[in-house]
């Protein structure tokens, strides 16, 4: 044994070592991102068809203020802003996870056909003229169904590899795509705009932000301690196993977690593209690829991006609203390309 510091006898577990905690090292960056996120949330609550000045906002938060302001802020804008934040955070975290799981920088939360399954569920409910609760519910079921289908098929008779999982997901997604087109064609004209909005992401369907927010908080708490294992997993399954990672259980958990997070996001706000792909990459370009930082930072930055995008979506051509997915793409694509261009 050349490492005398590992303690304990042969094959025994080493005694726990004292070392600096993880939290202090991550804190400065995460505090900065939290501050930016809070500023974005405040902005989202203040801006809209009726601008609420910050003094009025403060009064409302203290439980006073004008009744109109209170209704606007407490019943409409805060839930919607929080739902946007949670959705963006969920998508970005799940994108970061998928990219590590598939060891493919092009992976995003939707690459495994999740959004397609969710969309078929949601559009099906809309075709039948069911209410928003049904739309959300069937989107969730569709997403999970797609997950199980892709994983079962990729697993096949042998074992799955990232490449096989990716191919299966892409092909299943193409199948869902055909069904979506079919539904749009046969759908009654008056329902088409709603269906298209859902496909481009629409936070008007967000009923309560809490399920998504809770999912996001739980995900961060679970995933951050796994960060170093994920760093090792990114080096390939064999290298990870040699370094003590239980590869299969970890890959399974990541797959299930990423799927659930995406399903929660899609259920809240429809399919919103680019956030899951672009946010983790932007953060990697800025902060390096240590997952311990990238995962919680993705939650914050993804949330911030979507809050800003949704604020723009509902004010840019007010009183009309744009699908938020249009804005995330318009904001995200140039920013991402700029960062990529500047990086070495």
């Amino acid at each position: 044994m050349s490492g005398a510091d590992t303690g304990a006898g042969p094959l025994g577990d080493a005694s726990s070592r004292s070392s600096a905690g993880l939290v202090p090292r991550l804190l400065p960056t995460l505090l900065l991102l939290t501050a930016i996120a809070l500023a974005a949330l405040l902005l989202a609550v203040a801006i809209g068809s009726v601008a609420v000045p910050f003094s009025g906002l403060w009064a409302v938060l203290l439980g006073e203020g004008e009744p109109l302001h209170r209704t606007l802020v407490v019943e409409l804008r805060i839930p919607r802003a929080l739902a946007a934040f949670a959705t963006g955070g969920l998508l970005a975290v799940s994108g970061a996870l998928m990219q590590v799981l598939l060891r493919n920088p092009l992976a995003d939360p939707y690459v495994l056909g999740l959004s397609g399954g969710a969309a078929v569920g949601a559009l099906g409910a809309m075709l039948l003229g069911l209410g928003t609760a049904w739309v959300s519910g069937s989107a969730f079921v569709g997403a999970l169904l797609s997950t199980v289908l892709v994983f079962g098929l990729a697993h096949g008779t042998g074992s799955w590899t990232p490449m096989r999982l990716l191919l299966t997901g892409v092909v299943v997604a193409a199948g869902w795509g055909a069904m979506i087109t079919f539904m749009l064609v046969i759908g009654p004209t008056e329902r088409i705009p709603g269906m298209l909005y859902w496909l481009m992401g629409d936070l008007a369907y967000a009923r309560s932000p809490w399920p998504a927010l809770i999912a996001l908080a739980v995900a961060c708490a679970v995933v951050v301690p796994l960060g170093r294992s994920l760093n090792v997993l990114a080096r390939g399954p064999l290298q990870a196993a040699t370094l003590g990672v239980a590869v299969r259980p970890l890959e399974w958990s990541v797959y299930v977690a990423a799927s659930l997070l995406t399903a929660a996001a899609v259920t809240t706000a429809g399919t919103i593209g680019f956030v899951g792909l672009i946010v983790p990459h932007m953060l990697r370009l800025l902060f390096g690829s240590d997952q311990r930082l990238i995962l919680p930072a993705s939650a914050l930055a993804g949330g911030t991006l979507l809050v800003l995008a949704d604020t723009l979506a509902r004010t840019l051509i007010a009183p009309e609203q744009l699908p938020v997915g249009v804005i995330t793409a318009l904001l995200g694509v140039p920013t991402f390309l700029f960062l990529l261009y500047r990086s070495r």
Partner: protein
Amino acid sequence: MDLEAYELVIDIPGRSDGVPLNLDIRGGQVWGVLGPNGAGKSTLLHTLAGLRRPRSGQVLLDGKPLLSLRRRTVARHLAVIFQERHDSFPASVLETAMIGRHPFLSPWDVETAEDIDTALQALRRMDLAGMEQRSVGTLSGGERQRLAVATAITQTPSVWLADEPTNHLDLHHQVSVMRLLAERAAAGDAVFMCLHDINLAARWCDQLLLLYPDGNACWGKARDMLVPSALERLYGQSLASVELHGAPVFVPTESARR
């Protein structure tokens, strides 16, 4: 610490069992595996590392079945230097070496100054000092290989499994890696490596395993195994040998094996 193969048959689809391996890889020994392409050298190495299930038999680490041990426990004692590696995400040289400390850290730990020091020393040992902040993607093949060795050093194992550890290396660094492994063995570690170069094996290994493509194998002390006729049969290539400083040196001759 010892690594033992007991009646081990590696699982290569479509190949008959051949000779079951009974190897006792002890601390202090340097083992070399020789064999032509496709003989199963890497498969054997992965099986000995517990990364692949054998067709039959078992591998014992310190007398305990390897597959019954937790990966984390194994990782604290056994390191593998792989032939191929994945760098899908950008990382610095230091970060890459540092993952060798993973088995010793609990989820909420950050690497301590001591861990960083271990990694820096390993990088220095592999002539990578000054490159700590370089991105792995910018390294040459040989530098990347030395980084893989440095990562294994950072892992502070007592059993070393190395798949062609001299791949991509220039002559000087080939010797430096072999010397490192010999030093580790002299300090009591067990070393087991696949090699393509018979002469490196002849110079640095004290035990050799010859692995034939049909699953046959023979093993023993290096000087007993380095018989020209056996090596010619192993590679299907005729060889000439000369003595240099008391050790045999083998050179392929032009003709295929007679």
